């Protein structure tokens, strides 16, 4: 019955002996975090801690901060956060870190006193996207980037990685790279945002297709999880599957299916399951036996991303299903 459902997922004090409370705060409610939560839950079960997994429903820093404040009041003993606005929340995060162990996951605030960062380097991941584009259009061509919003750092870093590779330069952090200009043999038609609305993402892609009718050297690149499926849908509707190259990011099921059929060149996956699993495990250890936790000097625990193409997608999909218990 529905009454039992609540349990297990949420902190429940069993008898008088309560388990350590830990929390994971994502940066938005996207499905990406579902995979992460699966990992986190698994770790919580294994390490016997109480886990609150919170997703700021509106994806704003303000909401994220409120959630963390409330968690602190609620005597949470360790928190992992995917920081929404890393450069500017140092002070707040330091305040948290002064009270309890704090980990950054997925989005790092490297200048803060967080214990460790677990995640993927977004510029590096972006570079892998660039490599996929190069492979798809070896002679150069036009590319259009699609992303939900451009002000979050991860979006800008991925974009930067892509453009750096196309231009053939080393990545040295964010720099100015304008729409409309050429990067190596590739012209960047534009970076199109949709405010995290897949419907609009599809319309954007359809408009770019219409504007570039007949182009044979076109690559459409989705930088957030739902972008590649939205692009694929628009390309399918315009009957240009195969004629237009698509590169995606993250492991949306439609993206994976698209790679299988060859409609999508490939995607970059970050391994969110590990994000969740590792961070909760580390939090549990930091509470119970802090001396045993080994963290590198810079605190960065790289959980490497993977490039998926037709060759390895099937294996990945099987693995993912297993992890999610489907």
């Amino acid at each position, binding site marked *: 019955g529905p009454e039992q459902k609540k349990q297990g997922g949420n902190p429940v004090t069993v008898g008088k002996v309560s388990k350590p409370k830990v929390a994971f705060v994502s940066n938005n409610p996207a499905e990406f975090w579902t995979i992460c939560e699966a990992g986190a839950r698994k770790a919580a079960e294994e390490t016997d801690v109480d886990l609150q997994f919170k997703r700021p429903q509106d994806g704003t820093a303000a909401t994220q901060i409120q959630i963390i404040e409330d968690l602190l009041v609620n005597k949470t003993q360790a928190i992992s956060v995917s920081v929404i606005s890393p450069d500017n929340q140092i002070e707040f995060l330091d305040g948290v870190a002064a009270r309890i162990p704090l980990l950054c996951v997925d989005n790092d605030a490297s200048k803060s006193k967080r214990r460790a960062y677990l995640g993927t380097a977004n510029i590096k991941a972006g570079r892998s996207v660039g490599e996929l584009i190069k492979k798809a259009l070896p002679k150069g061509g036009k590319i259009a980037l699609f992303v939900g919003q451009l002000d979050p750092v991860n979006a800008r870093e991925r974009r930067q990685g892509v453009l750096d590779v196309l231009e053939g330069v080393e990545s040295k952090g964010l720099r100015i790279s304008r729409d409309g200009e050429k990067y190596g043999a590739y012209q960047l038609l534009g970076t199109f945002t949709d405010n995290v609305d897949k419907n609009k993402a599809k319309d954007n892609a359809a408009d770019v297709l219409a*504007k570039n009718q007949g182009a044979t050297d076109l690559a459409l690149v989705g930088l957030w999880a*739902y972008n590649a499926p939205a692009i694929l*849908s628009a390309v399918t509707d315009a009957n240009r599957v195969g004629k237009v190259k698509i590169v995606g990011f993250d492991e949306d099921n*439609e993206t994976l299916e698209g790679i299988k059929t060859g409609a999508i060149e490939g995607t970059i996956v970050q391994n969110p399951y590990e994000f969740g699993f590792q961070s909760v495990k580390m939090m549990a250890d930091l509470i119970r036996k802090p001396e045993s936790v080994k963290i590198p000097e810079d605190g960065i625990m790289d959980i490497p991303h993977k490039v998926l193409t037709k060759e390895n997608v099937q294996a990945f999909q099987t693995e993912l299903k297993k992890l999610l218990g489907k």
Partner: protein
Amino acid sequence: MSPPESKNMFTAFFSNPTVGRILGVFLLVVVLYTLMIGIEENARTVENHQNLARRIGEWGILTLGVGFVIITGGIDLSIGSVVCLSAVSFGILLENGANPYVATLVVLTGAGLIGLFHGYLVTKLNLQPFVVTLCGLFIYRGMAQFLTLIDFKKWMDPNLAAGTRILRDSSRDVGVGGRTDLTSFFWLQKGEWLGIPTPMWLFGILALLAAIFLHASVYGRYLFALGYNEQAARYAGVNTNRFKVIAYFLCSLLAGFGGILFLMKINSASPSNAGNWFELYAITGAVLGGTSLRGGEGTVIGIILGAAILPLLKTLVIFAGIPSDMEFSAIGLALLLGTLADELLRRRSEAARKGA
């Protein structure tokens, strides 16, 4: 509706306040369209026109719905959430093997019930429409999220061990479950007939029905009357409550249908953001089309034109190469200019009428 007494047919037509109100938005549509096809050769293609028509159709259906409610002097802020809940429920039904026609029926019934519920709260309990539908905005989105938590496969498994949890840990996007029997449903969104995309046909038919309902039928007169002066309409024997309920019902029903189209468009729906802001866009369309939020005013032709503005604007932004970061400003300014033009034209026509 022009005063037949006026000698000069031409002046009479343009000085009619309703026509004046439509003229502004008509002008805006013409300007935006001209800009679009002027700026880019590829904007003149059939493909682009089909894309546009499809989007106008999709928006139009929602705009039409909220138009009814606004005419009664109400508002519906829950449209986006109803779209979301419908899309998500439709997806879940499909994923679990339901017959798509049955699924449609279920979703539309649910959406209709939501509308009746709104109508009930607004009429019988006398709550403010803004508040009722604001609650709806939260509740239906929450319901959509909750639905995706349930593992129906497990739930319906007859061999399920007692006590097995059937709730997932977190919500998820729903899709169409890899169904291959949905051709006719995809056609609803992606198909075309005589070169015109199906959503546009659907919108056209619905708009025609709405026009008959609003402008030619007895019921339409009742809606306008109660929107302008509910008391007077009641005293005149109009069952005002019933017609208000009908307006909310139609609005939610159309939003539910919009949800089905939504799922058919992008093959998936995310409970946390599918349909976000749709209510604002729909209301904007209706209002631009001359539907007054004070109630009692509005035309179907205006709504059609109003529904065309946002799709046109968004396409224009891309074709004109305006950076995405400036899209909001562009939309806002266009709306403002459109409204201003509308108001100035109306004043003109009023002056003309006075002088005539």
